[in-house]
């Protein structure tokens, strides 16, 4: 790996090293999972709507919470950095969202739902191929690239959740619990551990002439 890539990876690592991303995203996913699991067990449609509403609210709030925590915790300790390509272009994000929504509609109402692959319904196969595998691979690759073994735990939890629900075919409520609660809780725990280590290793560094009141 050349020096430029190494330096950029260090900059990327700065965004993950504190564990805040994992903690916030993991906690949100685990929370949504809990609501859906409760809705499944209690057979409550209103709780399902609460879960969906939570997804939207957290989707809007999460970036703000993350920014606030980064500003308060990370910036005074290891600084703030942005690197080229940090934010995916708006066009890409819109395209991915449209593709995701389109696929959900197609699988729900279109002709694709009658197809099977290796005896499994197409939506089942697509879901595992497009959801679990990329997340697990991305976590594992980044864990190795940024020398952050805790990301490997998240990758493993995502894979385990996918494999158990694929082979075990548990009830809907348990499946949801596996999909959301297991990776979410794992991420929240590794994030908390990461944050504790980060706070221990990185004391507050003030800029010249700054005072803490």
């Amino acid at each position, binding site marked *: 790996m050349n020096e*430029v890539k190494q*330096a*950029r990876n*260090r*900059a990327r690592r*700065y965004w993950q090293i504190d564990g805040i991303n994992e903690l916030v995203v993991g906690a949100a996913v685990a929370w949504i999972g809990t609501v859906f699991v409760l809705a499944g067990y209690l057979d409550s449609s209103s709780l399902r709507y609460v879960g969906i509403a939570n997804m939207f609210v957290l989707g809007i709030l999460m970036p703000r919470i993350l920014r606030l925590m980064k*500003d*308060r915790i990370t*910036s*005074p*300790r*290891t*600084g*703030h*950095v*942005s*690197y*080229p390509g*940090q934010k995916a272009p708006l066009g890409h994000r819109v395209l991915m969202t449209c593709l995701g929504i389109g696929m959900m509609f197609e699988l729900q109402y279109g002709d694709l739902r009658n197809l099977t692959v290796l005896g499994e319904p197409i939506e089942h196969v697509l879901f595992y191929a497009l959801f679990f595998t990329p997340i697990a691979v991305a976590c594992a690759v980044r864990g190795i690239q940024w020398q952050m073994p805790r990301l490997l735990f998240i990758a493993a939890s995502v894979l385990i959740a996918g494999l158990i629900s694929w082979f075990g075919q548990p009830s809907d409520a348990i499946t949801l619990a596996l999909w959301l609660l297991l990776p979410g809780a794992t991420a929240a725990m590794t994030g908390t551990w990461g944050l504790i280590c980060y706070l221990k290793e990185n004391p507050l*560094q003030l*800029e*010249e002439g*700054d005072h803490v*009141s």
Partner: protein
Amino acid sequence: MSADFSADPNRVIHEPARLKIMSVLSILECADFVYLMNETGLTRGNLSVQLRRLEEAGYLVVSKEFRGRMPRTVASMTDAGRKAFKEYRAYLKTLLRTTAKTTPIQDALPESG
């Protein structure tokens, strides 16, 4: 292309501390004071002085902002800074390439043992 040995390097960039700052910022969009301090290993005072020098030369934009009650000094490279850094790199490359042909690094190293 042969090196022009009479040409001077860009003195603003050539200073080691400023070269470190420029090298870090050349591959980033922006970085704050604390990040630059950690990455370059410079002291607060030195970093502050060198940032000002680079800003005066028009190579960096340094802005001070507040996040809550915490101040944050953010530096990013200007187009002029990127151009100057690119020219500086080209100058060094040519110089080193020319000298490497006549004095290979292995020959220049003292013999061990």
